[in-house]
Each structure stands twice: as structure tokens, then as C-alpha cells.
């Protein structure tokens, strides 16, 4: 009852008198909740859409059979279909190609199906002919049926699609019901014929007979003669799980950034309420004398924080929903990470998630309000009314903080949990908390020394003694600076380290002058490629000195895991042509050298000098190397997060017979004009494929690729610069609020100093000097903590999340500038807060008792 009365009267008045201060805290909570909730909504919607598309595409299939590499022999189909474990089976040849729409290309997934079988397993893929289409359009050559997304983008009667390095025309004869990104369905035989894939299928969709499951069916199939060794048997739901894995680390990192925003929100709530408690210390003390108990005072301030949290969270959920809707509209379900291309999911709102994120916002505000609430409860009423109600500072124990720091260090050593660097994120949190809570203890430790050195200067003595006696309050006032600067320094170090490493990596992977790529999409690598004849023509172009060809394709080594990239290229000098982490291993006779990216070490246990057993039976079936595939080195790859293997092109061609080429690295002859060479190469491509355009073909110089890569890099990390600015702004807001609170609480003290003959400038000097000392200490602590957090980010979170390493690089000047700017801003903030301390009203504060 009393609480409700106080909230309605005193708290409401406080809110009305300082609307902007409270609004800042509300906005911070709102932004934290909005960011976290919108990331969740966008991702859940995109995943939901993808899962839905996968479900409709796989229909009633229980299992799908896929090869690890390349395609399956279509003769496998009768073996499977005739098995007693199978009720229905449908063979599919799956390709990704490019369709020409105007003067641009659009990625198009093309499925060759058996129209008589597909309806039993995946009804959504059954072709529905347009009215008036030929009766046997289902089986007609070069005839496709489009889903709604493809029809919307390409909906004409004919389509130009890419096969190899040529364009072919197909007729659109109808539609299919399957949703998701652009999809075309055609007869299996027609597709094999059109794309030169005779006898090949990509997968078999299977509905199991009653009483059978994956294991029993597999046992049955493996007893049949001609059953291939390495075949992947995946359950339909594993596809959704694989897609979820693709974006998990990216999603978690975005969510952590949102939680950082929420953390700053908690800090603002703390600052605002701390200031409120300092201002109302007299009121609180008087109410204490009148009978308001300590626990009632605690509940009162906590209720204020809960109010801020609840309103901020409600606004955050509304904003988060709007942001998610806008993000889905503008980005089409792609969070910017490129994991869900081509989808336009609708918003899937979840009340449960909204409650969870709303509760998170309220919890953050309650955490922020806890210390001011405790301070309000701990106020000694009589002492406070006499102007002496301050904390004398506890013993300043360092041990708990050191234990937190140690625990943080130990947590950073833990392995990831389901691909998420959970231990490392907790380590960062503990390092920050441990570092901030260690400040009072460090001050207690340094206090006697500072007193000995500075005790002879009265103004310095006042600052030193105050710092020593009320170290907790002073530490709290700079904790915002410590937290903000440590985050800013950590992000600066991490981004600089990453940028420097990417720069060095680009030096290594872009040795040629010009690069040609057959398609932007890796999925289209088997369908859109350069044929040897075209490569020979390009090699012979005037101005071209040397051409290196790359074949890039995919391998699936484990069901439920994303596919890895297999790159076949000339490897005469691996040390020069790959960004290897160590010296390459010697390869024994009979073995084939493979060079794996760092992700392969984590995901598939590849170790230098050891055989890569996962590849055996997958690559070069029937002609495997006697001594297997030897991991000859590990290389750094910032382009492929889920693993890549590089193999010499001669080995690859010998093992697979595949001579397709996807990328060309071109060295220009001395004195050749790059523009002229580019024009000549384009003209030769046009002449080869008989087309007027080279749409879909990518050609760029290494300088352009480098510039674009660094632009993309900087754009990707632009958000971190904003985050740093916001964090530091909030930290300084915290300093301003804390110093204002202290100045209010110390009005009598400053008034007394004026009576003792201190000038206004000297009083201002005390406040600004304390501000300088504390922000300098905070900045130093923040930079050191930031360095520790950066080590965890660079050496633990990045490798665990994205499976690549980088070198730690300290941008000393930028860090010094960052620290210096914070010190100057903090001192200025304290000086501004202190101006009222030296005003005539403050001088008269002593008069209050006269």
C-alpha cells in the first residue's frame, strides 16, 4: 500500500521532472530487446520458410539417398525401388543453374523427376501442365514446370538456362506446387539428356514400407550386390537441421551483439536509478525515520527499475516486430549472412518468444536496479539526514574478482557446445564482471601509496582520500567507462586483427592479375562451368601469359552436416599458392596430397601427416590411391566456414575424370593492357557460347576483388563501429549521471570548501581532477580488459564459431586514441557535472542547517 503510494507520488514526480534521463534508459532497454527479438523473428521466419519448402519438396519421403560426391548411378534406383523395405521411391537429378532474365542471371534449382513416380513420394513436385499444353508435355524434352517464385521472376513461355558454358532454351509448360526459392521441374530423362548427365541421378526420395526404419532398410540394402560403399542416407528432417547449422554461429553472434545492447540498457537503468537514489537520499532517510523499512526501500527502487524494464521491453517487442517485418521485406529473410538466398518469408510471430525476450528486458532492468535498490536499503537514516550517509567502503576484497577472472580464463578453454562458443561468451561476461568488480579492491590496494605521494597537496589529498573511502561509489561511476571501453577495445582489436589477416590471406589467394568465374553460386558449379575447349581458347588469347584453372565442387562427408568445398587446382608449389599455416608434409609414394582448411580439423578431425579417411571411397571410386589421401597441410580459408579441401588438379582428374573448370586465374603478359585483354576474353566467351551476352560470367582484376572484398568486410563490420560509439556514449552517460549524483550528494562538502576559502576554479578542479583520475584509471582498466576479451574473441570465439583462426594485431594508435578520447570526454563530463558544484546555490548548501 505504502509502496504503491510512493510509486504514484514520489517516483512519478521524479519521472516527470527528468523525462529525458528516464527516456534514455527506456530507449536502451527497448533497443536491446528490439534487436534481440528481431534477430530471432527474422531467423525463425527464414528457417520456418526453408523448413516448409523442404517439407513440401520432400513431401512424404522418410529418407533420401545421396552420394557423398558427384552423382549416383541410375541403376541404383531399381535396387532401391524393388526392396521390400520401400513402399515408394522417386529418382531425382538435382542441379542448380542460371536462368537469363533480361540482362541478368537468376539462380534456378532444376529437378529432373520421374513424373510417374514423383506423386507417390513428393506430390508437391508433380507437374501441372498449362491449359492447352501438349498432352505429353510432362515427358517432353527441354520442357520445364516452374514453382510460383520462379514463375514470378521468369514467367515467360520460354527460358534461357545455362548448361556448361552454353545457353539453352527451354519451354515453360506449367507449374509445380513446391514453395521456396525459384525451382523448375522437368522429366528426368530429358534433364539427363539436356545437361549431358546420362545415367546420373542426384538422389532417391523414399517412402518406407510399414515396419521399417532407416537402420533396418539400410541393413537390407547393404546385403544387395552392387550397393555402393559411401552413400548417405538422410532423414528428411536432417535437411532443416543442416540449414539451421549453416546460420547458427552467425545468428548467435548477432544475438550476442543484441545482448550487449541489453547490457548497456541495464547499465543506463543503473545510472538513472543511482542518480535518483543519490538525489532522494534525504527523502529516503526521512521516510526511513518515519518507518519505511530497508526492505521497503529496496522494493521501492526495484519496482522503479521493473517499471522501466517493462515499458522498455514492451516498446522493444513492438519495435523488434516492426524491424523484423522491415528486415524480411528488405532483405528477404537473409540476415546479411547469405544463408537464405532467394526466400521471401512471411513474419512468424511467436508469443512465447516475445514473452521470453520481454522477460529478458525486464530482468536486465532489474539487474541494473539492484545496486541502487541495495544502496537505498542500506542508507543509515540518521547519518544521512546529518549529511554523513555515505559508505565508508568495504575491505575492497580482490579475491572474488580474481576468482571470476580465473573462471573466465578457464571457461575460455572449453570446447564449443553444438557449434556455439558458449564457454567463451560466458568467459567474456566473467572477465568483464571480474574486471569491473576488481576496481574497488585495486583502489584499496593503491590508496596508501597514493596518499604517501599526493598527501601534501590539499586538493590532491581530498581526491585521494575520497577515492579511498568511497571507492565502491567511485568505481561504480567509472564502471560504465570500463565496460564500454573494454567492449570497444575488444571489437577494435578483433576487427583490426581480422582485417589484417584477411588482407594477408587475399595476398596469398589472389596471385594472378585477372579472375574469371563461371557462376556466382557454388551450387551451380556442376551445371555452369567452362569446358576445356573454351579454356584453351582463353589461354591462347593475346596478352595472356599464363592461366590456372580451378574446379570447385561440393562433397558431403556426413549427413546432417553442410557440404564442404572440393577445389582442384594446379599445386606445384603449395607453400606459395596456399595460405598454409605450417610447412607442408612430405607425401609418401602411393598417397595423394590434400590440403585442408582449418574447419576440416574441427569438423572432421583432419590432422597434418595423417590420412583423411573421410575421403576414402568417396573420391575416385575404383581408382583410389593405394596409400589413401594424406593431409599435407592446413590452410587458412576465410571464404568457406564449413570446410574445404584442395587437391592437385592432375590427381583430381585422374581420380574422377572430371575436366570441368569453374574459375580461371589469368596472368597477363608483360605490357598487356588489362582492359583490352578483358574485352578479348569476353568476346571469346560470347563467340564460344553463341550468345550476345556474358551475363552470369564474373570477370574482375585482383585489385577489384581485393577492393570489393575489403568493402564487404568493412560493411559487415560497420555495425561494430556504431556499437562502439553507442557503448562509449552510454558509458559517458553513466559517468555523467554518476558524477551528477555525486555532486548532488556532495553539495554540502563543496559548500564547506567554499567557506574554507577554496575558489570556484579549485572546486571545479577537484571534481574535474577526480573525473580525470577515475576515467584514466577506468580507461586503463578498460583497455586491459578489452585486450583480454579480444584474445578470447580472436583465439576462441572466432575459431569456435566460424572455424578459422587469425593473428592478433594490436592497433596501438587507435587504442591510444580511443582511450585518450574517453579520458578527455570523461573529464569534460565530470567538469560539466561539477559546474553546479561550484555554483552559489551549492555554496549555500551548508546554510540548509543554519
Amino acid at each position, binding site marked *: 500500500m505504502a509502496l504503491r503510494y510512493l510509486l504514484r507520488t514520489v517516483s512519478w514526480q521524479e519521472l516527470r521532472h527528468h523525462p529525458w534521463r528516464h527516456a534514455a534508459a527506456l530507449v536502451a532497454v527497448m533497443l536491446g530487446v528490439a534487436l534481440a527479438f528481431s534477430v530471432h523473428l527474422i531467423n525463425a521466419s527464414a528457417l520456418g520458410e526453408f523448413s516448409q519448402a523442404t517439407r513440401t519438396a520432400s513431401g512424404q519421403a522418410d529418407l533420401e539417398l545421396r552420394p557423398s560426391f558427384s552423382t549416383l548411378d541410375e541403376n541404383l534406383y531399381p535396387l532401391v525401388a524393388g526392396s521390400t523395405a520401400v513402399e515408394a521411391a522417386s529418382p531425382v537429378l538435382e542441379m542448380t543453374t542460371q536462368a537469363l532474365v533480361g540482362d541478368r542471371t537468376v539462380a534456378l534449382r532444376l529437378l529432373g523427376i520421374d513424373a510417374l513416380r514423383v506423386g507417390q513420394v513428393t506430390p508437391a513436385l508433380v507437374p501441372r501442365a498449362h491449359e492447352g499444353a501438349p498432352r505429353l508435355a510432362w515427358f517432353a524434352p527441354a520442357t520445364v514446370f516452374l514453382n510460383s517464385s520462379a514463375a514470378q521472376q521468369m514467367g515467360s513461355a520460354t527460358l534461357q538456362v545455362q548448361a556448361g558454358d552454353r545457353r539453352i532454351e527451354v519451354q515453360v509448360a506449367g507449374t509445380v506446387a513446391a514453395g521456396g526459392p525459384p525451382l523448375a521441374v522437368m522429366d528426368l530423362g530429358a534433364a539427363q539428356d539436356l545437361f549431358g548427365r546420362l545415367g546420373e541421378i542426384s538422389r532417391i526420395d523414399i517412402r518406407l514400407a510399414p515396419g521399417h526404419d532407416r537402420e533396418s532398410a539400410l541393413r537390407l540394402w547393404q546385403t544387395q550386390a552392387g550397393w555402393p560403399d559411401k552413400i548417405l542416407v538422410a532423414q528428411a528432417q536432417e535437411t532443416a537441421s543442416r540449414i539451421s547449422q549453416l546460420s547458427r554461429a552467425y545468428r548467435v553472434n548477432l544475438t550476442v551483439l543484441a545482448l550487449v545492447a541489453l547490457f548497456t540498457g541495464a547499465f543506463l537503468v543503473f545510472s538513472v536509478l543511482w542518480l535518483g537514489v543519490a538525489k532522494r537520499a534525504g527523502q529516503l532517510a526521512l521516510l526511513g525515520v518515519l518507518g519505511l523499512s530497508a526492505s521497503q526501500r529496496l522494493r521501492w527502487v526495484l519496482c522503479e527499475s521493473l517499471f522501466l524494464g517493462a515499458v522498455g521491453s514492451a516498446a522493444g517487442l513492438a519495435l523488434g516486430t516492426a524491424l523484423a517485418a522491415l528486415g524480411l521485406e528488405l532483405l528477404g529473410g537473409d540476415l546479411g549472412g547469405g544463408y537464405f538466398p532467394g526466400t521471401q518469408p512471411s513474419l512468424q510471430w511467436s508469443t512465447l518468444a516475445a514473452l521470453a525476450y520481454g522477460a529478458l528486458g525486464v530482468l536486465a532492468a532489474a539487474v541494473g536496479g539492484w545496486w541502487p535498490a541495495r544502496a537505498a536499503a542500506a542508507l543509515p537514516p540518521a*547519518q544521512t539526514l*546529518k*549529511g*554523513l550517509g*555515505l559508505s*565508508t567502503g568495504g575491505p575492497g576484497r580482490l579475491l572474488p574478482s580474481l576468482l571470476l577472472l580465473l573462471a573466465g580464463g578457464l571457461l575460455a578453454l572449453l570446447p564449443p557446445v553444438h557449434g556455439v562458443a558458449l564457454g567463451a561468451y560466458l568467459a567474456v561476461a566473467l572477465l568483464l564482471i571480474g574486471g569491473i568488480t576488481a576496481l574497488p579492491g585495486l583502489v584499496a590496494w593503491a590508496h596508501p601509496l597514493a596518499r604517501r605521494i599526493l598527501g*601534501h597537496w*590539499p586538493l590532491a*589529498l*581530498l581526491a585521494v*582520500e*575520497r577515492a*579511498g*573511502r*568511497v571507492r565502491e561509489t567511485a568505481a561504480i561511476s567509472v564502471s560504465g567507462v570500463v565496460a564500454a571501453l573494454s567492449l570497444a577495445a575488444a571489437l577494435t582489436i578483433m576487427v583490426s586483427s581480422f582485417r589484417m589477416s584477411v588482407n594477408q590471406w587475399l595476398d596469398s589467394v589472389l596471385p594472378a592479375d585477372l579472375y574469371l568465374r563461371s557462376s556466382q553460386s557454388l551450387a551451380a558449379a556442376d551445371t555452369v562451368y567452362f569446358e576445356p575447349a573454351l579454356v584453351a581458347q582463353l589461354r591462347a588469347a593475346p596478352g595472356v601469359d599464363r592461366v590456372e584453372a580451378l574446379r570447385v565442387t561440393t562433397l558431403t562427408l556426413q549427413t546432417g552436416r553442410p557440404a564442404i568445398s572440393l577445389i582442384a587446382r594446379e599445386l606445384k608449389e603449395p607453400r606459395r599458392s596456399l595460405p598454409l599455416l605450417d610447412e607442408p608434409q612430405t607425401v609418401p609414394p602411393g598417397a595423394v596430397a590434400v590440403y585442408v582448411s582449418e574447419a576440416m580439423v574441427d569438423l572432421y578431425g583432419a590432422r597434418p601427416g595423417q590420412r583423411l579417411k573421410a575421403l576414402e571411397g568417396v573420391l575416385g571410386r575404383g581408382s583410389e590411391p593405394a596409400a589413401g589421401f594424406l593431409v599435407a597441410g592446413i590452410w587458412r580459408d576465410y571464404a568457406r566456414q564449413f570446410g574445404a579441401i584442395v587437391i592437385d588438379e592432375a590427381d583430381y582428374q585422374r581420380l574422377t575424370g572430371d575436366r570441368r573448370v569453374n574459375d580461371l586465374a589469368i596472368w597477363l603478359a608483360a605490357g598487356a593492357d588489362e582492359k583490352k585483354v578483358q574485352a578479348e576474353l569476353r568476346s571469346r566467351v560470347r563467340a564460344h557460347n553463341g550468345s550476345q551476352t556474358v551475363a552470369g560470367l564474373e570477370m574482375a582484376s585482383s585489385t577489384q576483388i581485393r577492393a570489393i572484398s575489403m568493402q564487404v568486410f568493412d560493411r559487415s563490420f560497420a555495425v561494430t563501429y556504431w556499437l562502439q560509439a553507442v557503448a562509449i556514449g552510454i558509458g559517458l552517460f553513466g559517468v555523467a549521471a554518476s558524477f551528477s549524483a555525486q555532486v548532488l550528494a556532495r553539495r*554540502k*562538502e563543496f*559548500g*564547506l*570548501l*567554499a*567557506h*574554507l*576559502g*577554496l*575558489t*570556484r*576554479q*579549485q572546486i571545479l578542479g577537484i571534481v574535474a581532477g577526480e573525473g580525470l583520475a577515475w576515467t584514466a584509471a577506468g580507461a586503463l582498466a578498460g583497455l586491459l580488459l578489452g585486450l583480454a576479451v579480444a584474445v578470447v574473441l580472436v583465439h576462441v570465439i572466432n575459431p569456435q564459431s566460424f572455424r578459422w583462426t587469425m593473428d592478433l594485431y594490436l592497433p596501438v594508435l587507435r587504442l591510444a586514441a580511443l582511450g585518450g578520447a574517453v579520458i578527455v570526454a570523461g573529464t569534460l563530463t565530470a567538469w560539466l557535472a561539477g559546474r553546479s558544484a561550484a555554483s*552559489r546555490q551549492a*555554496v*549555500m548548501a*551548508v*546554510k540548509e*542547517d*543554519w
Partner: protein
Amino acid sequence: MSAAPGPWVVQVQDLAKRYGASPVFESVNLQVGAGQFVAVVGDSGVGKSTLLNCMAGLDTWDAGQVQLCGHSLQTARDDERALLRRQYVGFVFQAFHVLPHLDVRQNVALPLMLLKRDDPRRVQAMLEAVGLQGLESRLPQQLSGGQLQRVAIARALVHRPSVLLADEPTGNLDPRTAGLVMQALIDQTRCEGSALVLVTHSEQAASRADRVLRLSANGLEPA
């Protein structure tokens, strides 16, 4: 800062103070010489504390002149007034204001440190004079009201100020402690030659003054 030595340590001429349109007092005249003890009495709210603030250059006034140790406060800038206070004035308040982060010794030594006249023996002597020996390292929170006021007295006297401005210094004290405090102030006046201006409601304290003046809206008159 114009220095014009004269017989009066504090000289107030035709002083008038208003808060907006409401006059507080008018035509206040007062001269206090070295070693003199003047008590100012009057009803609550009549402006006694305001008058003390004006005498210390801590408050502004609307008409008249104030001179402190021969220096005109009228023409002095804020910083100059602060330096005059530091050098010539000792303050004692009713609410025994002390700096909460400094211990007893540091609180008492502060005026000397501000004047760059570090003198531990003088500090110790003052502490003994007010009966605080043995409590030098205590913080204000660890002292009683009487002890705090004695810290404030020692601090006010330690730099041998020319003027002591005391506002109800015994208002919150028991009779015995009040007696001790008054004795310390009077001793400073008699032995060290400081001028003492005491604002009080206590007839007993006022009875020990050389002159007792009553402040009203029309100025100071003998009580």
C-alpha cells in the same frame, strides 16, 4: 584587492539585502575590532545567517559596503573573496560540517594546508585544546555530535583567523559541551585577538559577549 588597513577587522556600512521584492534587512551597520566578541540575536528568518554570509563574501547584497580586514568585498572578485576567507576567516556552523572522507587530523589540518603552512604541532595542539587527543585517526562517522563540533572548532581556529564567524555553534550540543565550545571561541578572541561574531538564540552564550545586537528588518540595534 584593495587593502586599506583600519581599526576594524569587520566593517559593515548601510548593508541592505532583498530576496526579489521582499527586503530581508536594511541599513545594517556593524564594526568589530580585533579581540572583540559581538553576539547577534534576532527572530528566526530575520537574516542573521545571511548577514554572516555577506560578511564572508559568500552572498551578495543590494546596497552598502562590507570590509574584511581592510579589504572591500564589494569590489573583490569571487576568487579574491575566497582567498580572503581562506586567510582571515574561521567558520563554525550549527550542523558541525566536516569533510566526511578526511579523518579528524586531516580535517583540522586542512586550512593550514590550503595556506601552504603545514604545521603538525599546531594541529596537535588544537586537537588537545579541544580534547580530541587519541581520536586523530577517526573518521567523522565514528564521532558523536559534540566531538564533531570540536573538530569544526579546531579547524576554524587552527590557522589563527582574524575573524571568527559562528552561527549557532552550540545549538545542537548539550550544556557541558556547549560550554566547552564557547570557551574555546572566547579564548581565541581574548588570547589570539580574533574578532568573533556569534549568531545565537542562546541567552547564556550572548551574555558573554562584549556587545549584543538584535537584527531586525531595519538593521542592528543594541539588545
